[in-house]
Protein backbone atom coordinates (compact mmCIF):
# COMPACT_ATOMS: atom_id res chain seq x y z
CA UNK A 1 0.00 0.00 0.00
CA UNK A 2 2.71 2.50 0.98
CA UNK A 3 4.68 1.61 -2.15
CA UNK A 4 1.60 2.35 -4.20
CA UNK A 5 1.25 5.73 -2.55
CA UNK A 6 4.92 6.53 -3.14
CA UNK A 7 4.61 5.52 -6.79
CA UNK A 8 1.53 7.65 -7.19
CA UNK A 9 3.20 10.68 -5.57
CA UNK A 10 6.26 10.24 -7.80
CA UNK A 11 4.01 10.18 -10.84
CA UNK A 12 2.22 13.27 -9.65
CA UNK A 13 5.51 15.10 -9.23
CA UNK A 14 7.18 14.15 -12.47
CA UNK A 15 4.30 13.76 -14.91
CA UNK A 16 3.39 17.43 -15.03
CA UNK A 17 6.13 19.34 -16.86
CA UNK A 18 3.56 21.58 -18.56
CA UNK A 19 1.52 22.48 -15.51
CA UNK A 20 -1.68 20.79 -14.50
CA UNK A 21 -4.06 20.39 -17.40
CA UNK A 22 -7.75 20.55 -16.59
CA UNK A 23 -10.85 18.57 -17.54
CA UNK A 24 -13.97 20.55 -18.45
CA UNK A 25 -16.80 18.11 -17.77
CA UNK A 26 -20.37 18.96 -18.79
CA UNK A 27 -22.97 17.58 -16.40
CA UNK A 28 -26.23 17.29 -18.27
CA UNK A 29 -28.35 16.27 -15.27
CA UNK A 30 -27.14 18.96 -12.87
CA UNK A 31 -26.99 21.58 -15.65
CA UNK A 32 -23.42 22.66 -14.94
CA UNK A 33 -19.74 22.21 -15.72
CA UNK A 34 -17.15 20.72 -13.36
CA UNK A 35 -13.54 21.80 -13.85
CA UNK A 36 -11.14 19.14 -12.58
CA UNK A 37 -7.36 19.23 -12.07
CA UNK A 38 -6.38 16.40 -14.41
CA UNK A 39 -3.18 15.61 -12.47
CA UNK A 40 -4.50 15.46 -8.93
CA UNK A 41 -8.03 14.58 -10.09
CA UNK A 42 -9.45 17.21 -7.74
CA UNK A 43 -12.52 19.28 -8.64
CA UNK A 44 -11.53 22.96 -8.83
CA UNK A 45 -14.78 24.74 -9.69
CA UNK A 46 -18.38 24.30 -10.79
CA UNK A 47 -19.94 26.68 -13.31
CA UNK A 48 -23.72 26.86 -13.78
CA UNK A 49 -24.51 26.49 -17.51
CA UNK A 50 -28.23 25.68 -18.01
CA UNK A 51 -30.04 24.21 -21.00
CA UNK A 52 -28.76 20.67 -20.25
CA UNK A 53 -25.12 20.96 -21.35
CA UNK A 54 -23.66 18.02 -23.29
CA UNK A 55 -20.94 18.94 -25.81
CA UNK A 56 -17.68 20.66 -24.95
CA UNK A 57 -14.56 21.72 -26.84
CA UNK A 58 -11.55 23.56 -25.43
CA UNK A 59 -9.43 25.69 -27.78
CA UNK A 60 -5.88 24.49 -28.51
CA UNK A 61 -4.39 27.43 -26.59
CA UNK A 62 -6.58 26.65 -23.58
CA UNK A 63 -8.09 30.14 -23.54
CA UNK A 64 -11.69 29.26 -24.34
CA UNK A 65 -14.11 26.44 -23.70
CA UNK A 66 -17.30 26.07 -25.74
CA UNK A 67 -20.26 24.19 -24.32
CA UNK A 68 -23.44 23.17 -26.16
CA UNK A 69 -26.83 23.08 -24.44
CA UNK A 70 -29.18 21.05 -26.68
CA UNK A 71 -32.31 21.78 -24.63
CA UNK A 72 -31.45 25.47 -24.20
CA UNK A 73 -30.40 25.70 -27.87
CA UNK A 74 -27.30 27.78 -27.21
CA UNK A 75 -23.52 27.67 -27.15
CA UNK A 76 -21.77 29.03 -24.05
CA UNK A 77 -18.46 30.81 -24.62
CA UNK A 78 -16.31 30.38 -21.51
CA UNK A 79 -13.13 32.14 -20.44
CA UNK A 80 -11.38 28.95 -19.36
CA UNK A 81 -8.72 30.57 -17.18
CA UNK A 82 -11.13 32.93 -15.40
CA UNK A 83 -13.76 30.15 -15.24
CA UNK A 84 -16.46 32.55 -16.35
CA UNK A 85 -19.22 32.36 -18.97
CA UNK A 86 -18.65 35.29 -21.36
CA UNK A 87 -21.73 34.91 -23.55
CA UNK A 88 -24.36 32.56 -24.91
CA UNK A 89 -24.93 32.29 -28.66
CA UNK A 90 -28.23 30.79 -29.96
CA UNK A 91 -27.58 27.78 -32.24
CA UNK A 92 -30.29 25.86 -34.13
CA UNK A 93 -32.76 23.41 -32.55
CA UNK A 94 -30.47 21.03 -30.66
CA UNK A 95 -26.75 21.90 -30.56
CA UNK A 96 -24.79 18.79 -29.53
CA UNK A 97 -21.33 17.94 -30.94
CA UNK A 98 -18.79 20.79 -30.99
CA UNK A 99 -15.21 21.31 -32.18
CA UNK A 100 -12.86 24.29 -32.47
CA UNK A 101 -10.62 25.13 -35.43
CA UNK A 102 -6.89 24.72 -34.63
CA UNK A 103 -6.40 28.52 -34.73
CA UNK A 104 -9.31 29.00 -32.33
CA UNK A 105 -11.15 31.41 -34.63
CA UNK A 106 -14.10 29.22 -35.58
CA UNK A 107 -16.36 26.87 -33.64
CA UNK A 108 -18.33 24.10 -35.35
CA UNK A 109 -21.56 22.81 -33.81
CA UNK A 110 -23.78 19.92 -34.96
CA UNK A 111 -27.49 20.75 -34.66
CA UNK A 112 -28.76 17.23 -34.01
CA UNK A 113 -32.43 18.04 -34.67
CA UNK A 114 -31.92 20.57 -37.44
CA UNK A 115 -29.53 18.32 -39.42
CA UNK A 116 -27.10 21.21 -39.88
CA UNK A 117 -23.53 22.05 -39.06
CA UNK A 118 -23.09 25.60 -37.79
CA UNK A 119 -19.90 27.61 -38.14
CA UNK A 120 -19.64 30.27 -35.46
CA UNK A 121 -17.27 33.18 -35.02
CA UNK A 122 -17.05 33.21 -31.22
CA UNK A 123 -15.86 36.83 -31.13
CA UNK A 124 -18.68 38.39 -33.16
CA UNK A 125 -21.30 35.66 -32.70
CA UNK A 126 -21.82 35.52 -36.49
CA UNK A 127 -23.05 32.13 -37.71
CA UNK A 128 -23.64 30.31 -40.97
CA UNK A 129 -24.70 26.71 -41.54
CA UNK A 130 -24.97 23.92 -44.06
CA UNK A 131 -27.03 20.74 -44.31
CA UNK A 132 -25.59 17.48 -42.94
CA UNK A 133 -27.27 14.19 -41.97
CA UNK A 134 -29.94 12.97 -39.55
CA UNK A 135 -29.28 13.21 -35.79
CA UNK A 136 -25.76 14.54 -36.43
CA UNK A 137 -23.71 14.06 -33.27
CA UNK A 138 -19.92 14.15 -33.00
CA UNK A 139 -17.78 16.76 -34.78
CA UNK A 140 -14.00 16.76 -35.33
CA UNK A 141 -11.71 19.18 -37.18
CA UNK A 142 -8.56 17.84 -38.86
CA UNK A 143 -5.22 19.11 -37.49
CA UNK A 144 -4.62 21.23 -40.62
CA UNK A 145 -7.95 22.99 -40.11
CA UNK A 146 -9.10 22.31 -43.66
CA UNK A 147 -11.65 19.57 -43.04
CA UNK A 148 -14.39 18.85 -40.52
CA UNK A 149 -16.10 15.51 -40.02
CA UNK A 150 -19.63 15.12 -38.68
CA UNK A 151 -21.06 11.81 -37.45
CA UNK A 152 -24.53 11.62 -39.00
CA UNK A 153 -25.83 9.09 -36.52
CA UNK A 154 -29.15 8.06 -38.05
CA UNK A 155 -27.72 8.08 -41.60
CA UNK A 156 -24.93 5.64 -40.62
CA UNK A 157 -22.44 7.97 -42.27
CA UNK A 158 -19.76 10.62 -41.86
CA UNK A 159 -20.18 13.99 -43.57
CA UNK A 160 -16.93 15.50 -44.88
CA UNK A 161 -16.92 19.30 -44.85
CA UNK A 162 -14.42 21.39 -46.82
CA UNK A 163 -14.05 24.29 -44.39
CA UNK A 164 -12.52 26.79 -46.83
CA UNK A 165 -15.40 26.35 -49.29
CA UNK A 166 -17.78 25.65 -46.39
CA UNK A 167 -19.36 22.82 -48.40
CA UNK A 168 -20.29 19.20 -47.74
CA UNK A 169 -17.99 17.45 -50.20
CA UNK A 170 -18.50 13.78 -49.32
CA UNK A 171 -20.67 11.37 -47.36
CA UNK A 172 -18.87 8.22 -46.19
CA UNK A 173 -20.93 5.19 -45.09
CA UNK A 174 -19.68 3.70 -41.79
CA UNK A 175 -21.15 1.33 -39.17
CA UNK A 176 -24.62 1.68 -37.65
CA UNK A 177 -25.24 4.86 -35.64
CA UNK A 178 -21.81 6.52 -35.41
CA UNK A 179 -21.70 8.84 -32.39
CA UNK A 180 -18.19 10.03 -31.56
CA UNK A 181 -15.61 10.73 -34.27
CA UNK A 182 -11.84 10.96 -33.71
CA UNK A 183 -9.14 12.09 -36.18
CA UNK A 184 -5.51 10.97 -35.73
CA UNK A 185 -2.63 13.44 -35.24
CA UNK A 186 -1.48 13.04 -38.84
CA UNK A 187 -4.94 13.88 -40.15
CA UNK A 188 -5.04 10.78 -42.33
CA UNK A 189 -7.44 8.50 -40.52
CA UNK A 190 -10.70 8.91 -38.66
CA UNK A 191 -12.42 6.52 -36.28
CA UNK A 192 -16.12 6.34 -35.50
CA UNK A 193 -17.65 4.50 -32.54
CA UNK A 194 -20.86 2.91 -33.82
CA UNK A 195 -23.51 2.55 -31.13
CA UNK A 196 -25.73 0.00 -32.86
CA UNK A 197 -23.24 -2.19 -34.73
CA UNK A 198 -20.96 -2.53 -31.68
CA UNK A 199 -17.85 -1.74 -33.70
CA UNK A 200 -15.47 1.02 -34.78
CA UNK A 201 -15.06 2.11 -38.39
CA UNK A 202 -11.73 3.33 -39.76
CA UNK A 203 -11.92 5.94 -42.51
CA UNK A 204 -9.12 6.96 -44.88
CA UNK A 205 -9.51 10.73 -45.19
CA UNK A 206 -7.64 11.08 -48.50
CA UNK A 207 -9.58 8.27 -50.18
CA UNK A 208 -12.74 9.35 -48.36
CA UNK A 209 -13.85 5.83 -47.66
CA UNK A 210 -14.12 3.29 -44.87
CA UNK A 211 -11.13 0.95 -45.03
CA UNK A 212 -11.70 -1.28 -42.01
CA UNK A 213 -13.87 -2.01 -39.00
CA UNK A 214 -13.36 -3.92 -35.77
CA UNK A 215 -15.73 -5.25 -33.13
CA UNK A 216 -15.58 -3.67 -29.66
CA UNK A 217 -17.95 -3.94 -26.67
CA UNK A 218 -21.64 -3.25 -26.21
CA UNK A 219 -22.92 0.19 -27.27
CA UNK A 220 -19.63 1.94 -28.11
CA UNK A 221 -19.84 5.71 -27.78
CA UNK A 222 -16.57 7.59 -28.31
CA UNK A 223 -12.88 6.90 -28.91
CA UNK A 224 -9.44 8.38 -28.22
CA UNK A 225 -5.93 7.71 -29.51
CA UNK A 226 -2.80 7.40 -27.35
CA UNK A 227 0.50 5.55 -27.76
CA UNK A 228 -0.61 4.00 -31.04
CA UNK A 229 -3.66 2.54 -29.39
CA UNK A 230 -7.35 3.19 -29.88
CA UNK A 231 -9.46 3.38 -26.72
CA UNK A 232 -13.26 3.00 -27.07
CA UNK A 233 -15.89 3.43 -24.36
CA UNK A 234 -18.57 0.71 -24.23
CA UNK A 235 -21.58 2.24 -22.60
CA UNK A 236 -23.65 -0.87 -21.86
CA UNK A 237 -20.83 -2.87 -20.31
CA UNK A 238 -18.95 -0.25 -18.30
CA UNK A 239 -15.69 -0.87 -20.12
CA UNK A 240 -13.07 0.57 -22.43
CA UNK A 241 -11.86 -1.57 -25.36
CA UNK A 242 -8.19 -1.16 -26.28
CA UNK A 243 -7.07 -1.89 -29.85
CA UNK A 244 -3.87 -1.45 -31.81
CA UNK A 245 -4.72 1.65 -33.85
CA UNK A 246 -2.91 0.38 -36.95
CA UNK A 247 -3.85 -3.31 -37.02
CA UNK A 248 -7.08 -3.07 -34.93
CA UNK A 249 -5.90 -6.11 -33.00
CA UNK A 250 -7.63 -6.23 -29.59
CA UNK A 251 -5.21 -5.54 -26.73
CA UNK A 252 -7.56 -5.73 -23.76
CA UNK A 253 -10.51 -4.29 -21.94
CA UNK A 254 -10.53 -1.99 -18.93
CA UNK A 255 -13.42 -1.99 -16.47
CA UNK A 256 -14.54 1.57 -15.79
CA UNK A 257 -17.56 3.23 -14.14
CA UNK A 258 -21.20 2.84 -15.09
CA UNK A 259 -22.20 4.03 -18.57
CA UNK A 260 -18.90 5.53 -19.75
CA UNK A 261 -19.41 8.24 -22.36
CA UNK A 262 -16.55 10.40 -23.57
CA UNK A 263 -12.89 9.40 -23.45
CA UNK A 264 -9.97 11.77 -24.11
CA UNK A 265 -6.18 11.42 -24.07
CA UNK A 266 -3.70 13.72 -22.33
CA UNK A 267 -1.32 15.68 -24.55
CA UNK A 268 1.60 13.36 -23.75
CA UNK A 269 -0.55 10.29 -24.41
CA UNK A 270 0.23 8.89 -20.96
CA UNK A 271 -3.26 9.18 -19.50
CA UNK A 272 -6.83 8.70 -20.62
CA UNK A 273 -9.84 10.31 -18.99
CA UNK A 274 -13.31 8.77 -19.04
CA UNK A 275 -16.57 10.46 -18.03
CA UNK A 276 -18.89 7.87 -16.44
CA UNK A 277 -22.43 9.10 -16.90
CA UNK A 278 -24.32 6.93 -14.42
CA UNK A 279 -21.77 6.86 -11.62
CA UNK A 280 -21.00 10.61 -11.83
CA UNK A 281 -17.23 10.28 -11.99
CA UNK A 282 -14.26 11.13 -14.15
CA UNK A 283 -11.69 8.32 -14.13
CA UNK A 284 -8.07 8.51 -15.22
CA UNK A 285 -6.40 5.49 -16.80
CA UNK A 286 -2.72 4.76 -17.42
CA UNK A 287 -2.42 4.33 -21.20
CA UNK A 288 0.56 1.96 -20.97
CA UNK A 289 -0.44 -0.37 -18.12
CA UNK A 290 -4.19 -0.07 -18.84
CA UNK A 291 -4.92 0.33 -15.12
CA UNK A 292 -7.15 2.84 -13.38
CA UNK A 293 -5.19 5.65 -11.73
CA UNK A 294 -7.73 7.87 -9.97
CA UNK A 295 -11.37 8.91 -9.78
CA UNK A 296 -12.85 12.37 -9.39
CA UNK A 297 -16.45 13.24 -8.55
CA UNK A 298 -18.46 15.24 -11.12
CA UNK A 299 -21.97 16.67 -11.16
CA UNK A 300 -24.95 14.56 -12.20
CA UNK A 301 -24.82 12.87 -15.58
CA UNK A 302 -21.37 13.82 -16.96
CA UNK A 303 -21.27 13.76 -20.80
CA UNK A 304 -18.11 15.80 -21.63
CA UNK A 305 -18.90 15.07 -25.29
CA UNK A 306 -15.89 16.43 -27.19
CA UNK A 307 -12.30 17.57 -26.60
CA UNK A 308 -12.80 18.29 -22.91
CA UNK A 309 -9.15 18.55 -21.79
CA UNK A 310 -7.70 22.04 -21.38
CA UNK A 311 -3.95 22.49 -21.86
CA UNK A 312 -2.40 24.67 -19.15
CA UNK A 313 1.08 25.92 -19.96
Amino acid at each position, binding site marked *: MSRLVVTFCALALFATPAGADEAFVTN*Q*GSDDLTIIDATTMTPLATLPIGG*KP*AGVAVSADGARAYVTS*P*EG*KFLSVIDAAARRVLKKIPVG*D*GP*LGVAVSPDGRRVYVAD*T*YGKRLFEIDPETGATRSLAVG*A*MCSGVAVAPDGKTALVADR*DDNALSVIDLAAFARVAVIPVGRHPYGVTIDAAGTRAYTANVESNDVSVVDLDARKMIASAPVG*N*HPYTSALAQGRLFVTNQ*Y*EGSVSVLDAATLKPLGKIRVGD*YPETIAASRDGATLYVAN*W*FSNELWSIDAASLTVRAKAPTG*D*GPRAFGAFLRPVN
Partner: protein
Amino acid sequence: MRRAACFAVAMIAVAAALAPPASRGHGATPQKVVETIDIAAPPAKVWAVVGDFQNFGWLPGVAKTEGDGGNAPEQARRRTTFTSGAIIEDRLVQYDAGAMSLRYLIEKIDFKVMPINNFSATITVRPGAGGAIVEWKSRFYRAFPGGNPPDDYTDEKAVAAVTAMCRSGLAAMKAQIEAAP
Protein backbone atom coordinates in the same frame (compact mmCIF):
# COMPACT_ATOMS: atom_id res chain seq x y z
CA MET B 1 -51.59 -1.71 -5.27
CA ARG B 2 -52.11 2.05 -5.26
CA ARG B 3 -48.91 2.48 -7.26
CA ALA B 4 -50.01 -0.19 -9.72
CA ALA B 5 -53.26 1.71 -10.23
CA CYS B 6 -51.32 4.94 -10.79
CA PHE B 7 -49.23 3.24 -13.45
CA ALA B 8 -52.36 2.00 -15.22
CA VAL B 9 -53.82 5.52 -15.18
CA ALA B 10 -50.57 6.97 -16.55
CA MET B 11 -50.66 4.42 -19.36
CA ILE B 12 -54.18 5.41 -20.37
CA ALA B 13 -53.31 9.12 -20.28
CA VAL B 14 -50.32 8.57 -22.54
CA ALA B 15 -52.32 6.35 -24.89
CA ALA B 16 -54.74 9.22 -25.46
CA ALA B 17 -51.97 11.64 -26.37
CA LEU B 18 -50.59 12.64 -29.71
CA ALA B 19 -48.02 10.12 -30.91
CA PRO B 20 -44.57 11.39 -31.88
CA PRO B 21 -43.39 10.98 -35.47
CA ALA B 22 -42.58 7.40 -36.50
CA SER B 23 -38.84 7.69 -36.10
CA ARG B 24 -36.11 5.94 -34.23
CA GLY B 25 -34.81 9.23 -32.90
CA HIS B 26 -35.13 10.51 -29.37
CA GLY B 27 -34.42 13.48 -27.13
CA ALA B 28 -30.96 14.93 -26.53
CA THR B 29 -30.77 14.41 -22.77
CA PRO B 30 -30.47 10.91 -21.34
CA GLN B 31 -32.55 10.42 -18.20
CA LYS B 32 -31.78 8.40 -15.07
CA VAL B 33 -34.17 6.61 -12.78
CA VAL B 34 -32.95 4.56 -9.81
CA GLU B 35 -35.54 2.80 -7.64
CA THR B 36 -34.85 0.38 -4.80
CA ILE B 37 -36.95 -1.71 -2.44
CA ASP B 38 -36.28 -3.83 0.65
CA ILE B 39 -37.72 -7.33 0.52
CA ALA B 40 -37.97 -9.56 3.59
CA ALA B 41 -36.58 -12.69 1.92
CA PRO B 42 -33.19 -14.28 1.27
CA PRO B 43 -31.41 -12.71 -1.75
CA ALA B 44 -31.35 -16.08 -3.54
CA LYS B 45 -35.15 -16.32 -3.31
CA VAL B 46 -35.47 -12.82 -4.75
CA TRP B 47 -32.95 -13.56 -7.52
CA ALA B 48 -35.00 -16.63 -8.48
CA VAL B 49 -37.71 -14.17 -9.55
CA VAL B 50 -35.56 -11.28 -10.84
CA GLY B 51 -33.12 -13.60 -12.61
CA ASP B 52 -35.81 -15.34 -14.70
CA PHE B 53 -35.68 -13.05 -17.71
CA GLN B 54 -38.43 -14.98 -19.45
CA ASN B 55 -41.00 -14.08 -16.80
CA PHE B 56 -41.89 -10.39 -16.51
CA GLY B 57 -45.21 -11.37 -14.93
CA TRP B 58 -44.40 -9.61 -11.65
CA LEU B 59 -44.90 -6.24 -13.34
CA PRO B 60 -48.50 -5.05 -12.83
CA GLY B 61 -50.51 -4.90 -16.03
CA VAL B 62 -48.64 -7.71 -17.76
CA ALA B 63 -50.94 -10.25 -19.45
CA LYS B 64 -48.21 -12.56 -20.73
CA THR B 65 -44.48 -12.88 -21.43
CA GLU B 66 -43.25 -14.87 -24.43
CA GLY B 67 -39.66 -15.31 -25.49
CA ASP B 68 -36.69 -17.48 -26.17
CA GLY B 69 -33.01 -17.76 -25.37
CA GLY B 70 -33.52 -18.32 -21.64
CA ASN B 71 -31.05 -16.17 -19.71
CA ALA B 72 -28.32 -16.13 -22.36
CA PRO B 73 -26.91 -12.61 -22.91
CA GLU B 74 -27.45 -11.22 -26.42
CA GLN B 75 -29.62 -14.24 -27.26
CA ALA B 76 -32.48 -14.02 -24.81
CA ARG B 77 -35.44 -11.99 -25.96
CA ARG B 78 -38.86 -11.51 -24.43
CA ARG B 79 -42.09 -10.00 -25.69
CA THR B 80 -44.37 -8.69 -22.98
CA THR B 81 -48.03 -8.10 -23.72
CA PHE B 82 -49.96 -5.84 -21.36
CA THR B 83 -53.63 -6.22 -20.55
CA SER B 84 -54.15 -3.03 -22.59
CA GLY B 85 -52.81 -4.87 -25.65
CA ALA B 86 -49.63 -2.79 -25.71
CA ILE B 87 -46.34 -4.60 -26.25
CA ILE B 88 -42.71 -4.21 -25.12
CA GLU B 89 -39.89 -6.24 -26.65
CA ASP B 90 -36.71 -6.62 -24.57
CA ARG B 91 -33.27 -8.09 -25.19
CA LEU B 92 -30.99 -9.38 -22.44
CA VAL B 93 -27.57 -7.70 -22.64
CA GLN B 94 -25.69 -9.00 -19.60
CA TYR B 95 -26.41 -11.70 -17.05
CA ASP B 96 -24.29 -12.34 -13.96
CA ALA B 97 -25.90 -14.91 -11.64
CA GLY B 98 -22.96 -14.68 -9.21
CA ALA B 99 -23.45 -10.95 -8.78
CA MET B 100 -27.26 -11.39 -9.02
CA SER B 101 -27.42 -8.71 -11.71
CA LEU B 102 -28.79 -8.47 -15.23
CA ARG B 103 -28.93 -5.72 -17.83
CA TYR B 104 -31.50 -5.53 -20.60
CA LEU B 105 -32.71 -3.06 -23.15
CA ILE B 106 -36.01 -2.30 -24.83
CA GLU B 107 -35.86 -3.02 -28.53
CA LYS B 108 -39.42 -2.02 -29.31
CA ILE B 109 -42.07 -0.23 -27.30
CA ASP B 110 -45.59 1.11 -27.81
CA PHE B 111 -45.43 4.73 -26.73
CA LYS B 112 -48.80 4.16 -25.05
CA VAL B 113 -46.91 2.05 -22.50
CA MET B 114 -44.25 4.70 -21.90
CA PRO B 115 -43.20 7.68 -24.08
CA ILE B 116 -39.52 6.65 -24.10
CA ASN B 117 -36.79 5.38 -26.40
CA ASN B 118 -33.31 3.86 -26.10
CA PHE B 119 -34.13 2.39 -22.69
CA SER B 120 -31.62 0.14 -20.93
CA ALA B 121 -31.76 -1.02 -17.33
CA THR B 122 -29.86 -3.01 -14.73
CA ILE B 123 -31.64 -4.95 -12.01
CA THR B 124 -29.47 -6.08 -9.11
CA VAL B 125 -30.24 -8.04 -5.93
CA ARG B 126 -28.04 -7.40 -2.90
CA PRO B 127 -28.14 -8.65 0.69
CA GLY B 128 -29.82 -6.13 3.01
CA ALA B 129 -30.50 -5.81 6.73
CA GLY B 130 -34.04 -7.11 6.36
CA GLY B 131 -33.24 -9.71 3.71
CA ALA B 132 -32.62 -8.37 0.22
CA ILE B 133 -32.45 -5.05 -1.59
CA VAL B 134 -33.49 -4.84 -5.22
CA GLU B 135 -32.20 -1.95 -7.30
CA TRP B 136 -33.67 -1.16 -10.73
CA LYS B 137 -31.68 1.52 -12.49
CA SER B 138 -32.37 2.72 -15.99
CA ARG B 139 -31.20 5.11 -18.69
CA PHE B 140 -33.51 6.30 -21.45
CA TYR B 141 -34.57 9.28 -23.55
CA ARG B 142 -37.91 10.91 -24.15
CA ALA B 143 -39.42 9.48 -27.32
CA PHE B 144 -39.93 12.78 -29.09
CA PRO B 145 -36.94 13.44 -31.34
CA GLY B 146 -37.03 17.22 -31.43
CA GLY B 147 -36.36 20.36 -29.44
CA ASN B 148 -39.94 21.25 -28.55
CA PRO B 149 -41.74 18.09 -27.40
CA PRO B 150 -45.54 18.10 -27.02
CA ASP B 151 -46.74 18.13 -23.40
CA ASP B 152 -47.12 14.35 -23.19
CA TYR B 153 -43.64 13.68 -24.57
CA THR B 154 -41.41 15.79 -22.33
CA ASP B 155 -38.41 14.53 -20.36
CA GLU B 156 -40.52 14.95 -17.21
CA LYS B 157 -43.33 12.73 -18.53
CA ALA B 158 -40.77 10.11 -19.61
CA VAL B 159 -39.18 10.10 -16.15
CA ALA B 160 -42.59 9.97 -14.46
CA ALA B 161 -43.65 6.97 -16.57
CA VAL B 162 -40.47 4.98 -15.90
CA THR B 163 -40.54 5.87 -12.21
CA ALA B 164 -44.16 4.68 -11.98
CA MET B 165 -43.29 1.42 -13.74
CA CYS B 166 -40.30 0.71 -11.50
CA ARG B 167 -42.13 1.56 -8.28
CA SER B 168 -45.20 -0.47 -9.15
CA GLY B 169 -43.06 -3.37 -10.36
CA LEU B 170 -40.85 -3.46 -7.27
CA ALA B 171 -43.84 -3.13 -4.93
CA ALA B 172 -45.63 -6.00 -6.67
CA MET B 173 -42.48 -8.12 -6.65
CA LYS B 174 -42.09 -7.51 -2.91
CA ALA B 175 -45.71 -8.47 -2.25
CA GLN B 176 -45.41 -11.63 -4.38
CA ILE B 177 -42.15 -12.82 -2.81
CA GLU B 178 -43.07 -12.00 0.79
CA ALA B 179 -46.42 -13.78 0.40
CA ALA B 180 -44.80 -16.92 -1.04
CA PRO B 181 -44.07 -19.75 1.41
